[in-house]
């Protein structure tokens, strides 16, 4: 019984990938990584790992070594997805009959299961300590975002997306390296599906749309241009900025243009390294719904404490905290992220963060967990 129920939902969620026109949506950006998310999703100036290209190509200047992830896997899931999985595991519900399925929909009104998987390889080559770095990402990103709404006539709104991202870039120091310019070029292939399945469809035994049959597809390319200015002070203050060109993806949803600014500073005290960062992203309000000009929703800031630094990029143990869109995830001692690293050979990351999925900061939080592992050198 349990297996059947679980199978039903796995099939429902992962294969047929039901969905719906999510009217209010989160800002869906590609390549958001566990480190940045733990620091309130900052990275325009502070990115210093293998996801730097997704934040600011000039920030690759913060990478001072070779860096290869082969492979990396990052899983993100919401608390509601976790609860759903646990219920499936302990047999709290059955979905064998139509009535049970409808009861389930009723019980799950207002729930918001979200799952995202990122996987791929990364390669970064630092060629000059002033900040000349070449980098590339080869990433698959699969997102499934479901909401059950409307207690009168339950509807499953769902969104599924599969992105294949290939990007490469370079950071180039100007002069002695106080100013770094960066550029990246990316190619994206996207499949996505967005629809609503309601009780009428269930009663009429309508088939669920599938990503293969009913999804929209598209591909396109674009580039990001960024800068990073680094002061020579003891605080190592950095100011970064990036412009992302809009990428049209034919029938699939385009990636909007984005301007972002960020600042960061680094202090080192013996075996400790403290990084503070703050970003203001989507300065021109291209993301979100029409009329969404929320300042707080676009504000990110966070702190990172590295313990026993292994290099300028990694520490044995790293603790993080941050505010993302007005939320701080509730973690132990206010921590929202922890990382264990054996150089680049093995990196384990764990992050709690909260994403705004409504229309303004504070309207509809979605608490999420990110688990990361990578092997490399």
């Amino acid at each position, binding site marked *: 019984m349990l297996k059947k129920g679980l199978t039903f939902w796995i099939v429902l969620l992962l294969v047929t990938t039901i969905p719906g026109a999510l*009217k209010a949506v989160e800002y869906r950006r590609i390549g958001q990584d566990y480190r940045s998310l733990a620091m309130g999703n900052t990275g325009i100036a502070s990115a210093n790992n293998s996801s730097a290209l997704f934040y600011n190509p000039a920030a690759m200047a913060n990478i001072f070594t070779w860096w290869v992830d082969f492979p990396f896997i990052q899983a993100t899931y919401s608390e509601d997805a976790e609860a759903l999985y646990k219920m499936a595991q302990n047999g709290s519900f059955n979905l064998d009959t139509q009535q049970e399925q409808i009861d389930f929909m009723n019980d799950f009104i207002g729930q918001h299961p979200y799952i995202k998987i990122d996987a791929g390889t990364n390669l970064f080559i630092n060629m000059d300590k002033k900040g000349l770095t070449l980098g590339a990402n080869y990433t698959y990103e699969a997102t499934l975002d479901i909401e059950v709404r409307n*207690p009168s006539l339950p509807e499953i709104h769902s969104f599924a997306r599969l992105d294949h991202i290939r990007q490469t870039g370079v950071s180039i120091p100007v002069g002695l390296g106080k100013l770094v310019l960066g550029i990246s070029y990316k190619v994206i292939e996207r499949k996505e599906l967005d629809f609503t399945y309601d009780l009428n469809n269930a009663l009429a035994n309508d088939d669920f749309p599938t990503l293969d049959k009913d999804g929209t597809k598209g591909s396109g390319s674009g580039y990001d241009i960024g800068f990073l200015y680094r002061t020579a002070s003891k605080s190592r203050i950095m100011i970064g900025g990036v412009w992302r060109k809009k990428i049209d993806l034919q029938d699939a949803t385009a990636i909007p243009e984005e301007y972002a600014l960020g600042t960061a500073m680094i202090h080192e005290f013996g075996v400790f390294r403290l990084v503070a960062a703050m970003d203001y992203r989507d300065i021109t309000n291209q993301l979100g719904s029409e009329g969404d000009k929320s300042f707080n929703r676009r504000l990110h800031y966070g702190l990172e404490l590295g313990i026993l630094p292994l290099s300028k990029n990694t520490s044995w143990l790293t603790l993080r905290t941050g505010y993302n869109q007005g939320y701080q995830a509730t973690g132990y001692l206010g921590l929202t992220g922890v990382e264990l690293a054996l150089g680049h050979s093995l990196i384990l990351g764990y992050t709690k963060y909260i994403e705004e999925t409504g229309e303004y900061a504070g309207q509809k939080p979605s608490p999420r967990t990110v688990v990361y592992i990578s092997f490399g050198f």
Partner: protein
Amino acid sequence: MRVNPEKLFIHRAISLIMVFTVCWMLQGCKDTGATHAMADLETCKILLDKRNWSEAIDACNDLEDDEGKHLAAIAYMGRSGLTMATILTALSDSSNTPTSLIFEQIPDTEAKRLDFKIALHKIMGEIQTKDQSMYLEAILLSSLLIFKELKTLLGLTLVNGTLGTCAGDPANIENCAFAPSITEVYNATYDKNVPGKLVFGGLGASFYQRIGGDLTTDASVTDTTRDTLSKITLSLINDPKYGTVSVDVTYDVTVDSARIGRSSPLYYNKLASEAYATAGTVDLSSLNFYSRMDTGTNFSIVVSPLPSITFCKNDGITPPVASDLIINDCEMLSFLENPGF
């Protein structure tokens, strides 16, 4: 260059204090409320999902597009305990009949009736582009409002899934409180009480007002016609009760009639039923009350010892016409005799 440790410490301390001060000042920076239309819509949806009905009504009533009006209607329905999911699920079971399912949801308070009225009007009167789900909701809401009045009028009961009326089985209007009756009068010629009047008081203005009156104004639409001039000569020979008499029996008949308002439950029932019938997934023809009420069927009855009598005749009260958006007691009594439950 040699670094002064004291200066370095002060510099770092100030920097850190600044960082933590900024973080503290910004902590929990959230917006205080909706600033754009989509945010208002989302607020409405969130409250609906939480089943905070009254707050949802307040939030959704401010929305001006079709989706917002529909959500407001859902909030009104929810506040009064009506969920389409329950009814729709039950309707999909072929062993259930729509009428018996609807009966169980009839609003039992005036507050619920008002909520259903508002919800119905939002769906049918305010939403510009309607889908099948909305028509379905409108059919169910209008049926509930009509059923409420029928329940009052007919004393509807549900026994073992079967609806009963005051007419009984087999149906006979004479079993109902509103049935026409004969009033006796003393006749000096025969020195006894004899049939003097045929009395029928009509089904009542409030009945018509509630099913055919406009939802927005709740104005009465009832016309009343009295026919006290007509009479019939009754000749009885050896009647067991009256013996042999020949008397004139006067009609004291009130036939109520109503023009169906364009925003009334019955009119919305008509519109929604017609729209849903073309593409609906569930057979709801039994809830098409308009088509079964405005039939033009005249009503005849035998009230012993009188011969068969028809209330609506051209010499007194205009007989009903089918589908003319006017209903009167003659049509309604015919319907009540055979409501098709």
